[in-house]
C-alpha cells in the first residue's frame, strides 16, 4: 500500500503562484506520468512530493500519512534527476552505497542490495568506474540503481530521458517500463514528451498552469480528451482544429464546408460556436470531402507521408497517410474526416461536447 494522495496542494514562490490546488490519488503500483507544457509546474509538483520543496498549503500523504513536514530522506521515496545528479567523484559502487551508508545500514546488507541492483540493471562490470567514464544510457541506469537500492515505496523521475539522444531515449523508455513491471513499485514520471507519456504510463496527468486538466489512462486521454487543450497536447502531429458553428446536426466550418455530426454523440445547441477537431490520420483523401486544403508541403517518408496545408481561412491542417501519396505542392485537395473519430469543443470554454466517456 504505497499510494500517494495530494490534497488541494498549492505552491507559491513569494507572490508567484505556481500550483493552484491539485488533488490527485495515485494508487500503489501505478506508473503515473505528469505531462504538460514547459513551466506548467510538473517539476515543482514532483519536488513537493519528494520533499525538496516546501508545501504552501494542502497535504501530501503517503500511505495515508501526511508527510508535509517529514524531511525528504525519510519519506521513503527515491528520485531520479533529469541530469541524474550522480556524484562525479565517487565510483558507481560508492554512488549506490552512499545513501545506504547515510542510514547506517550494516555493510553486509549494503553489499547485498547493491549487488542485486547491479545484477538487475546489468551494470556489474561498471561498478568501479566513475560516472564520467560512462555513456548516457549507463549513467541513466546508475541513477536508477541508486534509487532502486533504497527500496523506496515510490520512485520519482524528473524528465530522466530529456538529455539523451533520440535513439537512446527509445531504448531507455523500454528499460524503465520493464523495470516498472519487474519491481511493481509506484512510479511518478515527469516529462513533456507525450510519446513517452503515451507509451509508458498507466495513468497520465496533463497539467497546465498549475492545474490538472485531465487525469486518466493514456488511450482514454487520446480517445476522450476532456478539453481542447488535452486534445491538442496528446497525439502527434497535434490534432487539427477548425472553428465553426452548429447548424442543426452539422458543423459549418468558418473556412467553408459542412461536416455532419454523428447522432447522439455530442451535446450541442444550434448556433453554438464550436471547434471541430480531427486528427491528421483520421482524414482521408476524398474528392467529395467537405474540407478543402491548399497543400503547402508534402513530406514523403517512404512508409508514411504527411501533407501540410491551410484551409481557406488560414487554419493550418495536416494529413497523415501510410505509404506514399500522390499529392503535389500548391494544389488543393479535398479531405473527408472519419466521423467516428471527430471531436467537438465549445470554442469559448474549450470543453468537449462529447456525451460518451471512456469505458472503465
Amino acid at each position: 500500500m504505497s499510494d500517494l494522495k495530494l490534497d488541494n496542494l498549492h505552491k507559491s514562490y513569494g507572490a508567484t503562484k505556481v500550483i493552484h490546488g491539485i488533488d490527485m490519488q495515485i494508487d500503489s503500483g501505478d506508473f503515473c506520468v505528469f505531462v504538460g507544457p514547459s513551466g506548467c509546474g510538473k517539476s515543482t509538483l514532483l519536488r513537493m512530493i519528494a520533499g525538496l520543496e516546501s508545501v504552501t498549503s494542502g497535504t501530501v500523504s503517503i500511505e495515508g500519512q501526511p508527510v508535509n513536514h517529514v524531511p525528504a530522506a525519510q519519506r521513503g521515496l527515491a528520485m531520479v534527476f533529469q541530469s541524474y545528479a550522480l556524484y562525479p567523484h565517487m565510483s558507481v559502487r560508492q554512488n549506490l552505497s552512499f545513501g545506504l551508508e547515510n542510514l547506517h545500514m550494516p555493510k553486509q546488507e549494503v553489499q547485498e542490495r547493491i549487488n542485486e541492483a547491479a545484477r538487475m540493471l546489468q551494470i556489474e562490470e561498471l561498478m568501479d568506474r566513475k560516472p564520467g567514464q560512462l555513456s548516457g544510457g549507463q549513467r541513466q541506469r546508475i541513477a536508477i540503481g541508486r534509487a532502486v537500492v533504497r527500496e523506496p515505496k515510490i520512485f520519482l523521475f524528473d524528465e530522466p530521458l530529456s538529455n539523451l539522444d533520440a535513439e537512446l531515449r527509445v531504448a531507455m523508455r523500454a528499460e524503465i517500463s520493464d523495470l516498472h513491471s519487474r519491481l511493481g513499485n509506484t512510479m511518478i514520471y515527469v516529462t513533456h514528451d507525450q510519446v513517452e507519456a503515451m507509451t509508458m504510463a498507466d495513468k497520465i496527468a496533463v497539467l497546465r498552469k498549475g492545474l490538472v486538466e485531465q487525469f486518466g489512462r493514456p488511450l482514454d486521454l487520446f480517445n476522450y480528451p476532456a478539453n481542447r487543450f488535452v486534445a491538442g497536447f496528446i497525439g502527434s502531429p497535434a490534432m487539427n482544429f477548425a472553428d465553426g458553428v452548429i447548424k442543426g446536426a452539422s458543423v459549418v466550418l468558418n473556412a467553408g464546408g459542412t461536416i455532419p455530426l454523428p447522432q447522439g454523440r455530442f451535446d450541442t445547441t444550434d448556433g453554438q460556436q464550436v471547434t471541430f477537431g480531427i486528427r491528421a490520420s483520421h482524414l482521408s483523401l476524398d474528392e467529395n470531402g467537405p474540407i478543402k486544403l491548399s497543400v503547402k508541403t508534402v513530406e514523403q517518408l517512404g512508409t508514411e507521408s504527411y501533407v501540410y496545408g491551410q484551409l481557406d481561412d488560414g487554419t493550418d491542417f495536416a494529413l497523415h497517410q501510410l505509404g506514399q501519396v500522390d499529392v503535389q505542392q500548391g494544389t488543393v485537395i479535398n479531405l473527408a474526416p472519419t466521423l467516428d473519430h471527430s471531436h467537438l469543443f465549445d470554442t469559448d470554454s474549450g470543453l468537449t461536447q462529447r456525451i460518451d466517456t471512456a469505458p472503465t
Partner: protein
Amino acid sequence: MLEALSNAFSGNSWPVAFIIYLVLGWVLVRPKGRIGGQLMSALGWPIEIAQRLSGATGLPYIFLLPNMIIFGLFTFSPLFINIGFSVTEGQSILFENRPYAGLDNARRLLAETQIDTGALNREDDKFLQAVADTFIFVIFQVPIMVFFALCTALALNREIIGRAFWRSVFFYPVMLSPVVVGFLWTLILKRQGVLSITLMNWGIIDEPIQWLTDPSWTMFWSVAVYTWAHLGFYMLILLAGLQAIPKDLYEAARMDGTNEWRMLRRITLPLLMPTLLVVTILSLVKAFQAFEELYALNVRWISLVAYIFETSGLRGQPTANGLGIAATASLLVALVLILLSLLQIYLTSRQSK
C-alpha cells in the same frame, strides 16, 4: 593637472611615433564607418597589409608580436640579465665594468667561508635564514588562508541575506595597495597602536607589545595581515568553484538522507578539490613572492624577495658583489617558482582531462 599631462607626453617620442603610425595606417587602409571603427582599422594596418600580401599564414605571429616584444624586453631579458649578473662580480651595474666570476657568486651566497676574505661567510646564514623564514611563512600562511577562504566561501555560498554585500566586504582588501595595507596595519600594530592599547585597557596584557617586531609575534602578524589582504581573492575563486557544483547533487544527497556535515565532507569538498588545488598552488606561489606588504609593514624577518631586494642594493647602499649575489639568489627563487607553476599547469590540465 595640465602640467602632469604635458610632462607625460612631452620629452618622449613614444606618443609621437604612435600618432605617426596611426596616420600612416589611416592613409594606407582608408577606413570607413564610425570614428572608433576607423581608429581600430587604422591601428591594424600592418596586419591588413600582411594579409593582403601573403595570406593568412604568418598572421598569428604578428598578432602575438606586440605582446611578445614587451614581454621579451621586460620579462625575459631581465631574466637573462640576471643570469649575466650572477656570473659576474663587482659593484657596477654596467656589464663592461663587471669581470666574469663564474660560480663565485654562488659560493659567496652559499659557501661556508667567504671567498674574498677567507673569514666565516655570513651571507649564507642570511640567505638560509631568509629561506627558512620564508618557508615558515609559507607553511603557515597558505593553509591558514586556504582554510579561511574556504570557510568564507562556504558561508557565502549559503542562502544568506545580502550575499553580494558580504562578498564585496571580503573582497575589498584585495583592492588595497600593499603600501596602504602595510600602513593600515602598522597603525594598528605598532607598540602604541590601537591593538596594544585596547588589550591593555581590557587588562589582557600588561604592557604594550611591539606586534610587528617582537620575534614571537612578527610571524603571526605577517601571516595574519597577508592573509587579510589576499583572502578575498581566493575566496572568490572558491566561491566560483562552489557555485559550479550542480545544485541537484545536493538535492540528490538530501534525498539520500545526508546531514550537513557529511554533505560537506563527502560532496562539497571532493567536488571542490580541483579549485582547492588551484587556490593552494596559486597562493603557494604568491606566498613565496611575499614582499610588498611585508616591506610596508616593516616586519622583523626578511623574506626571500626582501633579501634579494636588499642585497641587490637597488635601494639602499650597493655593496661589493651584492648585485651578483642577489641575482644568483633570484635565479634560485625563480626556478622554484617556475617549477611550482609548471606543477600547477600539469595538475590542472590533468584535472580537466
